């Protein structure tokens, strides 16, 4: 079986350039026709890719993206984005089934999120941190770019070659990204609207990367096509799963004398949406918040490593922290993530 797979990998490696190959190509493997193998590979991969629908739809903000089934088949790995700012994220499987997903946790540093769905028998991708693609290697992106596929329609497949594996350099104002680590740079336009969270697979159909969010170099005006390598993704997923960033604020017990926004000297933008992001509107001079270093326009992401999914969520979390206790928050300020200790 294992030998068979290796032969297959060989055959595809060659056939990828040449589906014109003679039909008796794999003479030793009558069941495997290389001209069809790449098709089968793509079809097989599609089963582990889902279409995600959530918040957005306004100009420049898509309300859809792509997700990858991992773990035991009930976890969806995707980009952490405004699409997830809804109570339930709608998941549409390869065969058109519609499922509701909850955000299980997020990792702001890698801009990744995990969603949890009921078991729907979806085949998961393994996250093998050893699987680092090489420069020049043939890869395929499977994404729902532009939201082209709907219902039971298959996500789009694109071919590409790994151009480089390099860090997204921290050039302030040039690349608007929170993630600053290594990425796989691809030679074709994979990172289109809706593509983020999609899979980058190799010729054996193994997951080698997760397509990142749309990213444009503000100075050069160039769109960058990249994926997060699996080792980075794996440690991010492990972090989320180990509960470092849980989102289960609702179950936290309230205390009798909690922190309150007013007492902290903090005003957030008005709560107008079902999930209004916790943006700081105003900070009172000499207040606790001001002394801690909070500024207007900061987006509060985590409090004591608990994910803040909305303004209401922040108030809930604060209600569980005793007024006398200090706490740690993570804010996004522009393109930076800043950890702040708030001391009463």
């Amino acid at each position, binding site marked *: 079986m294992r*030998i068979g797979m*290796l*032969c297959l*990998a*060989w*055959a*595809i*490696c*060659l056939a990828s*350039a*040449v*589906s*014109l*190959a*003679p039909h*008796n*190509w*794999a*003479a*030793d*493997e009558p069941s495997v026709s290389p001209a069809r193998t*790449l*098709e*089968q*590979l*793509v*079809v097989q991969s*599609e089963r582990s890719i889902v279409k995600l629908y959530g918040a957005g739809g306004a100009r*420049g903000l898509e309300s859809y993206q792509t997700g990858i089934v991992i773990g035991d088949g009930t976890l969806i790995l995707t980009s952490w984005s405004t699409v997830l700012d809804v109570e339930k994220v709608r998941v549409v499987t390869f065969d*058109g089934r519609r499922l509701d997903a909850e955000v299980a946790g997020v990792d702001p540093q890698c801009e990744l999120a995990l969603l949890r769905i009921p078991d729907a028998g979806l085949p998961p991708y393994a996250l093998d941190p050893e699987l680092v*693609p*090489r420069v*020049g*290697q043939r890869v*395929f992106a499977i994404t729902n*770019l*532009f939201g*082209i*596929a*709907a*219902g*039971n*329609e*298959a*996500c*789009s*497949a*694109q*071919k590409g070659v790994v151009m480089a594996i390099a860090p997204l350099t921290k050039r302030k104002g040039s690349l608007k990204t929170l993630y600053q680590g290594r990425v796989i740079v691809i030679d*074709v*336009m*994979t990172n*289109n*609207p809706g593509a983020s969270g999609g899979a980058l697979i*190799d*010729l*054996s159909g193994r997951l080698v990367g997760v397509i990142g969010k749309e990213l444009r170099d503000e100075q050069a005006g160039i*769109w960058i096509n990249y994926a997060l390598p699996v080792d980075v993704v794996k440690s991010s997923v492990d972090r989320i799963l180990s509960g470092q960033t849980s989102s289960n604020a609702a179950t936290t017990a309230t205390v009798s004398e909690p922190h309150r926004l007013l007492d902290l000297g903090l005003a957030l933008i008005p709560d107008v949406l079902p999930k209004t992001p916790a943006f700081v509107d105003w900070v009172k001079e000499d207040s606790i918040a001001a002394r801690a270093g909070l500024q207007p326009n900061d987006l509060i992401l985590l409090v004591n490593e608990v994910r803040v999914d909305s303004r209401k969520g922040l108030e809930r979390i604060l209600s569980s922290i005793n007024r006398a206790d200090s706490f740690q928050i993570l804010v996004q300020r522009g393109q930076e993530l800043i950890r702040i200790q708030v001391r009463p």
Partner: protein
Amino acid sequence: MVCQHSVVAQQETASQAPEAGKIDPQIAPEPAAAVIAAQQQRIEAMQRAAAATVGVFGFDGQGGGSGVCITPDGYVLTNFHVSSPFGHRMRCGMNDGKMYDAVVAGIDPTGDLAVLKMYGRDDFPVATIGDSDQVRVGQWCFAAGNPFVLATNLQPTITYGLVSGVRRYQYPSGTILEYSDCIQTDTAINPGNSGGPLFNARGELIGINGRCSFEKRGRVNVGVGYAISIRQAMNFFWHLRSGRIVDHATLGFTVATDNKGRVIVTNILESSDAYRRGLRYGDEILRIADREIATTNQLKNVLGIFPNHWRIPLRFRNDIEVVDTYVRLQSLHLPVELEEIVQGESSQEPAPPPRNPQDEPKDTDKEEDGKKEKGPVRGQKAKKVDRLADRYESRRGYSNYYFNRLEIDRIVGTISQRGDWNATGPMWRLQGQVAGEPTALQILTGDASITAKAGDREEAVGSKLGWIPWIQQRSTLPLGLGVRVWQLWHRIGPQKMGEAVYIGRSPLVGRDGLFDTTRIAIGELDAVVYTAPDSGLVECIELTVDNQTDPAEIFFEKYRSIDGRSFPAQIRLAYGLETRTAMEVESVEWNAAPAAEGTD
């Protein structure tokens, strides 16, 4: 030689693999003979494909799009949005380094197709037509064409990529232009590629490139291009050769997906053919044209690839049973709607005035490509003498009426091959019997009246007027009316019968293949005559009253020779899908005397 090498090399490779135990597929091996052989095959496929690829330019050489030649006498498939800015006259470049004069034949503004005719050779290189229904995601494909009007030396640009998606539906963007059931590819499709061919890896034509998704990244490829399937293009090809402004279709009912995921009829016109075939509100649509329907998108996909008036299979489920039937497709637009669109996009005059910028095709969203590359067509045309002036005829409802006459002439040419009809008189008497019954049947057709006598029962009607009630009542007399039209078709030809329009090629229920379809206005109704493309034999005549009534369908079957003339041994009358009656023809009297009328 090379092929043999490739197989040997592959076997070696395969047998080495297990022995090596651990093979890293990521390290490229030395190019094996198999790879080189396959590369050679690819080069050959591309060379064949490039030879049939056409660069489309304005009459004065300006602008540019792409096309592909599919017949040796020079019929070219391209996009409507490529041809429309050029009016009816253009020039086509091929990779033999020559420019050929061309005119537009038919256009399909909804499906974004046009057919051009090149002149100058009778052995143009043609593309091999592939089967777009077999195209799958993950197959390799390549496009040939004229992106960014680079092909100044008339050598097409080839771009290679992957089929990213199949059976895609792309909504009309701003205009009526709609891409249904199209092929999505990451092959670089850029402005100027429009109208050009998409080939599979074997070099067979699978689509016509026409549209891209761009959004915020400007008008260059971002890895998403769409090609109209060659299946759709070939469904429309003969319609487009008719020189008409071709329309798409509706089914006469609307659907929605219910909460169980079933596609359910939510509204149906009582005048629709589907209603007459028994489809009702709330019924579930299962299959259309042999394609499973599980979503409304799939229904739109299937519908978009057929011309109007085609009759396609439908399977639906009502409360009691699953029903298999056929439905006639209705026109999607009023003729005037299509004409307005065409007038907005192109000029119908032989020598157009300088184009007003406002007449430029609207830049619909950011989607269709090709337009921005075209310079405005200036009035220099008038300076040149157009050698093809006689290949263009302006007429309302047509993009070029010349081609309609051409096709009718072709069909008329087959009539004399079927016998000497001039020697027949104005009155024919057919003797025979009702099929499967011992009842004698006689049909007498002449310039004064048409009579059908079955046993003792005789029915008669005038030779021009008064036909409609007989069809509405589903009587047997229209068997004689069909014979009358058949007689006129052979004796005087379609042009003298009434206004004759060549429609294209359409399917017939229960028959394989497509049939030349000609519509003739006779008296108060339309006769639609279906003829076999090669033999010219009349297979079916439909007498159409209006869209509320099933037409009378008269089938002419089991042709044999009578007195050196091809004549059916069986003539069958049907309404809807039910046979009303049939006649077994035993003899024909070609010069019957009028005095014989009414006698035993």
